[in-house]
């Protein structure tokens, strides 16, 4: 079978120099006939294959991508393929979230002596891609607008935190303040209905600290900026996971950060709150009930029950209390039940691949590429050197097309694999409300499934799954070539 009967399709192969490229050579020496579609890019090691190369190829018109390396244990660099196996497997799971059929991507192991196996792999993969046909694009996918359903019931009673021991906390902060450059918390923002970060340096600053459902922002994002200085931070449970993740990644030193924690009763989804408040001139006041807050604007009262207006993530939250803290006050809330599938993810799950491509095209069109999602993300530590706007490396162009925008979301999601705590700041920060959190949730779920229910930001001493490997992976099986 020299060439597939139909027109050649674009298949890109990334082969490690030591085993698979040699295996392809061996196949050639043995005159093992193969379909001609494949174009091979030689890389030193399968561990060199950044999953982003694969996404880049698939988004740029490749119909299939094949990665092949040395068999596990046989890596010329001893462990490169172990890392590759994890990263590529995560990618394999992730591609469908974008609407890309993951049958278009495969990775395998072929040694330098396995010419016959290489022939079999190329033939089977090419046949598979021909069965799938040319890859559909994003730019011309039919429009499809969909929104997530309401969130399920929370795992704990949500409230406004009005009875939290805020004053005792302020006292505790004041005691520690002399040793700290500042303590990061929340204070009232441009009106009563909005908060803004507080950087308390003097005791009187501490009096401005507020606690309650308006404290949506995850302040952990500021910690790396204070690298080398001693700072305090007030955290909700979810924020504490970001702090743990930063500690795990050496971006903050444990001795430099003092963590103040109160049990969180949930935060408001300000997008929906603002939508309900509509256009108003002034906030006349805000009243905290046990499970609701009332905001008066231009004389009109608006009631927001936590059950209805809490952020989606708060409903599935299993860590209302900080997972790590130095000063902790208040009673531990009771969490019951298992975290449900988050709404944004459920929305993705409910769609087929075609629908997902349409969905993302529809959503991504309005992306401004402001990258607020990135800058609000506590785990986006590259900051000023993000590869999305560099020329060396030159991953992306400034073009405003859907694929560029979606590729950025993929970069963010893949870079967050095993690191994202699901804090949702990316989506919260998006000025045009694109439900990008679903992609991060998708990858977090994959990481959990593949790596023994691993959740980021729980254990500061854990090895992040994609920075480690097992010689025998428990949940990754090589797929057979038949």
């Amino acid at each position, binding site marked *: 079978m020299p060439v597939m009967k139909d027109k050649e399709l674009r298949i890109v192969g990334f082969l490690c120099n030591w085993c698979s490229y040699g295996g392809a050579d061996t196949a050639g020496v043995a005159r093992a006939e193969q379909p001609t579609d494949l174009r091979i890019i030689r890389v030193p090691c399968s561990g060199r294959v950044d999953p982003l190369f694969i996404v880049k190829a698939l988004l740029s018109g490749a119909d299939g991508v094949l990665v092949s390396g040395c068999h596990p244990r046989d890596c010329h660099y001893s462990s490169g393929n172990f890392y590759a196996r994890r990263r590529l497997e995560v990618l394999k799971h992730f591609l469908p979230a974008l609407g890309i059929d993951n049958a278009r991507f495969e990775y395998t192991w072929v040694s330098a002596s396995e010419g016959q196996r290489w022939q079999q792999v190329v033939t089977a993969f090419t046949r598979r891609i021909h069965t799938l046909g040319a890859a559909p694009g994003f730019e011309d996918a039919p429009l499809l607008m969909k929104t997530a359903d309401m969130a399920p019931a929370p795992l704990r009673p949500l409230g406004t935190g009005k009875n939290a021991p805020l004053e005792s906390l302020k006292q505790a902060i004041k005691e520690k303040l002399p040793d700290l450059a500042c303590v990061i918390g929340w204070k009232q923002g441009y009106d009563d209905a909005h908060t*803004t970060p507080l950087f308390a340096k003097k005791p009187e600053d501490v009096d401005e600290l507020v606690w309650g459902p308006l404290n949506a922002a995850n302040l952990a994002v500021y910690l790396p900026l204070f690298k080398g200085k001693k700072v305090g931070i007030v955290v909700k449970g979810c924020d504490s996971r970001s702090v743990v993740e930063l500690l795990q990644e050496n971006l903050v030193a444990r001795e430099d950060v003092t963590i103040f924690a109160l049990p969180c009763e949930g935060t408001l989804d300000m997008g*929906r709150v603002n939508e309900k408040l509509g*256009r108003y001139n002034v906030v006349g006041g805000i009243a905290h009930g046990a499970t609701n807050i009332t905001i008066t604007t231009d004389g009109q009262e608006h009631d927001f029950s936590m059950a209805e207006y809490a952020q989606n993530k708060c409903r599935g939250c299993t860590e209302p209390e900080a997972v790590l803290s130095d000063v902790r006050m208040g009673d531990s809330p009771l969490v019951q039940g298992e975290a449900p599938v988050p709404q944004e993810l459920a929305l993705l799950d409910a769609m087929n691949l075609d629908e997902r491509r349409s969905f993302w095209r529809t959503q991504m069109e309005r992306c401004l*590429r402001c990258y607020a999602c990135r800058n609000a993300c506590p785990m986006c530590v590259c900051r000023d050197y993000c590869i999305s706007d560099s020329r060396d490396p030159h991953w992306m162009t400034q073009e405003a097309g859907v694929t560029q925008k979606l590729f950025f979301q993929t970069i963010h999601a893949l870079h967050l694999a095993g690191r994202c705590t699901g804090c949702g700041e990316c989506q919260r920060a998006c000025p045009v409300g694109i*439900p990008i959190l679903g992609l991060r949730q998708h990858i977090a779920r994959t990481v959990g499934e593949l790596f023994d229910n691993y959740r980021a930001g729980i254990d500061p001493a854990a090895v992040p799954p994609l920075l480690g490997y097992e010689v025998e992976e428990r949940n990754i099986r090589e797929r057979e070539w038949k």
Partner: protein
Amino acid sequence: MSAIRFATPDGLPAFLARLSENSRILAPAVKPAGKRSVIFEDWHEGMPVILEKATVPPKDAVLPQCETLFTYKKSKNPDNREDVALCLENRAEARPTVIFACRPCDARGFAVLDRPYLKGPFADPYYKAKRANLTVITITCASGCNTCFCHWVGGGPSSPEGSDILMTEIDGGFVLQSMTEAGEKLLESAGLDDGREVFAKAEAARKTAWASLASAPAIKTAPQCIAALFDNEQFWQEHTEACLSCGACTYFCPTCYCFNITDEGDAFDEKGGRRLRSWDNCMSSLFTREASGHNPRTQKALRMRNRIAHKFSTYPENWGAFSCNGCGRCISGCPVCLDIRAVVLNAIAAAASEA
């Protein structure tokens, strides 16, 4: 003599449909999501007519998020491969465009953009072509809003600056008033009813809107005050601590006009190379990073100083008007609720105390 017309709510789609025969219509469209947004989009028949203030201003009509200025191709002489010919293709395109239902602040944005792009020593041909083909139909605001402050900076709920037509909602419909020749021409052929009879109602509505605004603080001294604070790094640091450097504020500012130019693609490729102009963001460290790697504004405080100063000090110095028109999007859209008004007022106060 301006043209005045009246349209019922039901009549608006027909009006737009008529306009769309000869022009592209950019009108607000709702994007439902957990966080709802309103975006200017190509309007075509069958779409609802939305009059809400958009999340993102219609700046894109004259200054696209990314535009291809020109493409370039190289081709080799078959007889001498070292002889390479370069061929440029200008891509300045300008379709007649009508912006429908932007707000006065948005429209004033075009006035702010016009100065550097058209009135300086060199007119920008790409901008110029688009601007010349643009007609702006503005809906006046019926009230103020908690984040708006147009009247601080010389605007107002029915400010006509930058608009070709002002449209004001009254009982039972809308009064459309042309403010420019282009607007007049448009209204004359728009097939709408005469509105002179109800024009008074529109004027009354505009007055009511004005009256609803809280009084504006005096910020006339802002240019000098901010200039005076140029070296006060502590002031800028205190006001920038919460900033994430995301620059979302600049992307949905109707008056931010900085851009970046990049080349993409290969000149030998079929598609050719593309010279792209795309929005840039002064809040990003990249904005001032030089090729050598040196960056005069590494701190976000200095970048914030630049943004505030540009809007309230340097631009006014050059052009005699604030380049902020008080739309308030940078406040309502900021992920951490930073308030530019507070910065300006604090700067005036700080300068006063310094002095």
